[in-house]
């Protein structure tokens, strides 16, 4: 129950600071609306009929990064003006404190993904997924956001200030985004770049999301591999965040 108490407090923070929702969704929306329109013509020659639909899965991952990164900022704000210390000396399990924080980031991600999907409909993007496909999308987005939220939460407790935090998150997010199949098909890449793209776990979640969104289905073994990969990553993200919180009290 303490998880929901922390979650409720954090959700209230999010809506109180609603600009964080606008700011974090702004860049992915610009990619969706502007970039897809501009690059769409070129991509038709590569056999991609609806480029907006093609880049939507990558932008879902990008919006997860944005939303979850901003939840790390919440830690800094609550440390300087809020109940961070008061919560830590209350009889709430450390794991509940972390979980409440991560789930808020996941909820924010879902809200922003929902907005992205609505906007994409104006660009003729039609989800081919049935109920089972929607459930798969839900699981994949949940695991992706949970991992990123754990990473961001832990980083915000390890890094000394907001400036350093923002710098590190930008240094991580942009290479991860561009070295994936978010903007172009993997078949067009060769050599070391292809290896880098294949090593990137987000490449695989984007591929699966794309298959489910565009064709309503995904290759079973590949799907299982991606889900298991992200279950492990989500677990590691949670442990990293928990260690960060415990370290906060071990100065």
């Amino acid at each position, binding site marked *: *129950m*303490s998880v929901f*108490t922390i979650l*409720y*407090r954090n959700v*209230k*923070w999010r*809506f*109180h*600071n609603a600009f964080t929702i606008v700011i974090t969704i702004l860049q992915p929306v610009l990619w969706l609306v502007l970039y897809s329109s501009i690059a769409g013509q070129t991509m038709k020659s590569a056999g991609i009929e609806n480029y907006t639909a093609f880049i939507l899965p990558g932008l879902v991952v990008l919006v997860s990064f944005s939303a979850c990164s901003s939840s790390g900022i919440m830690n800094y704000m*609550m440390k*300087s*003006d*809020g*109940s*961070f*210390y*008061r*919560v*830590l*000396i*209350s*009889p*709430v399990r450390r794991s509940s404190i972390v979980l409440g924080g991560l789930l808020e980031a996941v909820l924010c991600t879902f809200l922003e993904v929902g907005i992205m999907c609505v906007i994409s409909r104006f660009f003729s993007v039609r989800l081919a997924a049935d109920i089972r496909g929607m459930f798969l999308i839900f699981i994949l987005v949940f695991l992706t956001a949970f991992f990123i939220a754990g990473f961001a939460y832990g980083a915000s407790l390890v890094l000394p200030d907001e400036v350093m935090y923002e710098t590190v998150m930008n240094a991580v997010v942009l290479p991860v985004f561009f070295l994936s199949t978010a903007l172009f098909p993997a078949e067009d890449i060769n050599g070391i770049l292809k290896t880098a793209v294949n090593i990137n776990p987000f490449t695989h979640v984007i591929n699966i999301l794309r298959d489910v969104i565009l064709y309503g289905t995904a290759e079973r073994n590949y799907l299982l591999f991606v889900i298991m990969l992200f279950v492990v990553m989500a677990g590691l993200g949670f442990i990293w965040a928990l260690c960060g919180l415990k370290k906060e*009290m*071990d*100065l």
Partner: protein
Amino acid sequence: MQNQMTKYAIETENIIKRYKNGVQALSGVFLSVKAGEIFSLLGENGAGKSTLIRILTTYLRPTSGEVTVFGKNIYTEAAWIRSQIACVAQQTSIDTQLSLEENMLFQSRLYKIPKADAVKQMEKLIYGFGLERYRKYPVASYSGGVKRRLDIALNMMSKPRILFLDEPTVGMDAGSRNLMWEMMKQIRDEFKITIFLTTHYLEEAERLSNHICIMKDGKTVKQGTLAELCSLSESTLEDIFLHLTSAESGKREEEDCI
């Protein structure tokens, strides 16, 4: 049950705290705080008062030394101790995105207080701390004094047995400070809560405390009632404080040791 009857709310023995960056904040703290009293920890800036509070509130672990709260060991029973204490830190810890009532109820949920009891306690505290007329205003718009009152009130939602107050009157004007002092006495007398107060205002310690402890350079150098401290040298608390915390005194003590 035996622990519930413990005479001392807090007992410490030779607490040492060396931060990982090498700073030695505490180098020998011996304290005994009786249940139900106002205990003042007096010391200059950098004496180690805030570090000590952070240890006693289970936020930090000491490098070595013994600490018990109502007879329970801080190393092994931190979770139980957390349910018995609350701390008003130097910086107000109000969530400005929550309303006054939401802040207080959030605190009660952290301590798993049943809703009906929480609402009853909240009404009592809102009335007791004169916060009725601020209910409908956003918390962010409150003045510093009102925020401080709300901070103390919400920390009392869990009916703590020990309330830690870390320099609660810093930066307050004379009127607000007097009001705060009355409030502290009220908390001790009406709510029967042990108050552990850190301050560097001598007048505050003099007017409120049952027991006073003077700290210098991370060590406790004197502890007793105001009468006991003053009777030692037939001087005022100010004289004693200045004598114990001055650089000269430190040198003399070092020379004595050599």
